[in-house]
């Protein structure tokens, strides 16, 4: 990193990055724990995930405050400005990621009341693993300022979409086979959707990392999987039909 004449300025920037990395670690753990709580039907873990979300929110506010302070007092330019803005952007992506993880954990609590659905939760677990890996890779890329790794996360987003489409079909088959599973399958479907969105946030972070390092936008079209059966209906505002305690707040 560049040397700053005012040492405190450099310290503040480093501190901001460190805070973002810590927040990333927390978000990562939230996602991993949420998936584990689904896979192992672990009620205590799911509750812990729901409770811990407050800390992510607090970190988000803190990082935002620190960034604004830094912009106001130090008037950063060029790469410093990009670092500051990047921290703010990452923090809000991570905060959303945490919310989605919390939503998965809430649904895990409901699923734990019913019968176990082994093959389906295993598919969710597999998709969750994939998404967690992407999140980890992109945060590694941010910490180490490695542009190649960020790019590889950015360009492989279609893997998650493929998984989501496969899961969508699998769940539909189950629901058609046995209408009693519809409640559980719907929850699993939303979990899959949430995971898919976490994947999108990872892609966003990759874009931010790219911008922060190069100062340029990502150009070119991201490779997309063929729109699956779930994609046509995404425009319907399905969230509003959910019971209020399940919406992604």
């Amino acid at each position, binding site marked *: 990193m560049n040397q700053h004449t005012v040492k405190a300025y450099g310290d503040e920037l480093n501190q901001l990055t*460190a805070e973002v990395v810590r927040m*990333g670690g927390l978000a990562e753990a939230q996602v991993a724990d949420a998936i584990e709580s689904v896979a192992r039907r672990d009620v205590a873990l799911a509750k812990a995930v729901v409770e811990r979300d407050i800390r992510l929110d607090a970190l988000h506010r803190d990082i935002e405050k620190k960034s604004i302070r830094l912009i106001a007092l130090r008037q950063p330019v060029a790469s410093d400005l990009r670092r500051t803005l990047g921290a703010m952007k990452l923090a809000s992506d991570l905060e959303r990621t945490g919310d989605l993880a919390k939503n998965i954990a809430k649904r895990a609590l409901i699923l734990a009341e019913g019968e176990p659905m082994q093959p389906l939760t295993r598919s969710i677990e597999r998709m969750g693993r994939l998404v967690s890996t992407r999140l980890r890779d992109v945060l590694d890329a941010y910490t180490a300022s490695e542009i190649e790794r960020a790019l590889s996360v950015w360009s492989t987003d279609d893997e998650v979409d493929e998984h989501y489409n496969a899961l969508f079909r699998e769940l539909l088959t189950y629901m058609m086979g046995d209408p009693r599973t519809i409640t559980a399958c719907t929850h699993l479907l939303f979990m899959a959707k949430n995971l898919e969105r976490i994947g999108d946030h990872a892609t966003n972070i990759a874009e931010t990392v790219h911008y922060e390092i190069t100062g340029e936008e990502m150009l070119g079209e991201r490779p997309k999987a063929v729109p699956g059966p779930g994609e046509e209906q995404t425009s319907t505002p399905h969230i509003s039909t959910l019971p209020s305690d399940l919406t992604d707040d």
Partner: protein
Amino acid sequence: MPYEHSPSPVAPTASSRLWTAGASGGVAILVMAALAVMKPELAGWLAAGAVAVALATWLVNRRPPALVSISELDRSGPVDLAPDGALLGDVFEALDDPILIISGGEADDIAGRRIALANAAARDLFRLNGTGAGLLVSVIRDPKVLEAVDEALFGNFSSTVDYVGGGAQERHWRAFVRPLPERDAHLWGAGALALLALRDETDTRRMEMMRVDFLANASHELRTPLASLSGFIETLKGHAKDDPKARDKFLDIMAIQADRMGRLVADLLSLSRIELNEHIAPLGRVDLARAASDVVDAVSVISRERGVTIKADLGQGGATVSGDRDEIVQVIQNLIDNALKYSSHGGVVELSIDRDRTLDEAMVARMPEGTRLSLATPDREAGQKYAVITVRDHGPGMAREHLPRLTERFYRVEGQKSGERQGTGLGLAIVRHIIIRHRGGLSVDSALGQGAIFAACFPLAPVRDAVEGAPAT
């Protein structure tokens, strides 16, 4: 930087043990000399003592100065009790487990947690350069570990947490966090210090998972036919007792189920036998072409039943490999069985043998539009040639994510049921173990809808002289 203000670590400081040891040795010798002058009758003993002290002093001072000696960085802690600080420094460096020393900074500033010292294993793991100094969050951001470090730094609390590390493969670590007594503030940045030691538990985890999976799978595979057997026995004892027609039908089904259990147990036994012998190289010589044609003859009944043609292009001679005949026959048999299972009625299974290939030629990709994966690769030996047997089917094929797991016990490609296919789920696991024992290789090529190609290669046996039976040099 914690090292910025430190004195050169190589030069011993004035009160270093090097000097003190030398000085005290010298004083002792002087005292003895004085005593010898006063009491001449003891001079012999005292001279011997002086020589001993001089020798000891020389031995202590002979120690080469180490790069970083803990005893020089810190002269007050418990480290001083140790015989040799430099040795401890070397031990720290040489330990296999990654170890980090973390300095605290301000309690509310996450950027204050810095790595003060990292041993070689830790620098390797986290790809740190030089002394390894840097921010702690840039190498570990797991909230549990960070919390444990904070507790150790500011609450003087020891703890042990599990931590899953990144990298290409997931690794499970157990992190031991211990508070360290406070050191010289200006050497280490600021006040509090903590030790973070990691222990790799990935293998233990994996073994445990495999054991649990294996038990669950094996008992599940055995339970299904067993349940059907006991169901039919119940029926035969009850209302089907006097119905000869139903009895015959039930007995047939029971025979099939018992047969299936028998095959599963036989596979399990042969797997365990092969595993026991895995590190003993087989001694015999086998003609691969002849073994293959024997297998083709043996399965011709089944293949006709299924309406599958086996097209064998075996050639003549030149494919003598070193190996155990029964085991090599089992490899070919299992591969052909698999190919038959996944061929539809009217399909073709192709079998061919290539001779005199190098390892790279043997493991080459065979399906241009498919994915190739090596399931077993032998150690490279210069000049070693291989004979390759390839079995191709034109069945449904497999997606690339299934390929790495094919040789796992009881692994089934999703959407395939064990019932109709009659497999035990152990066939490829047995194939792989036999091939590893034979120092051979196994690779698979497949694409969805295009079938699969399995290629097994075995090292060619050394050429014999014209006289049969005399081994060549």
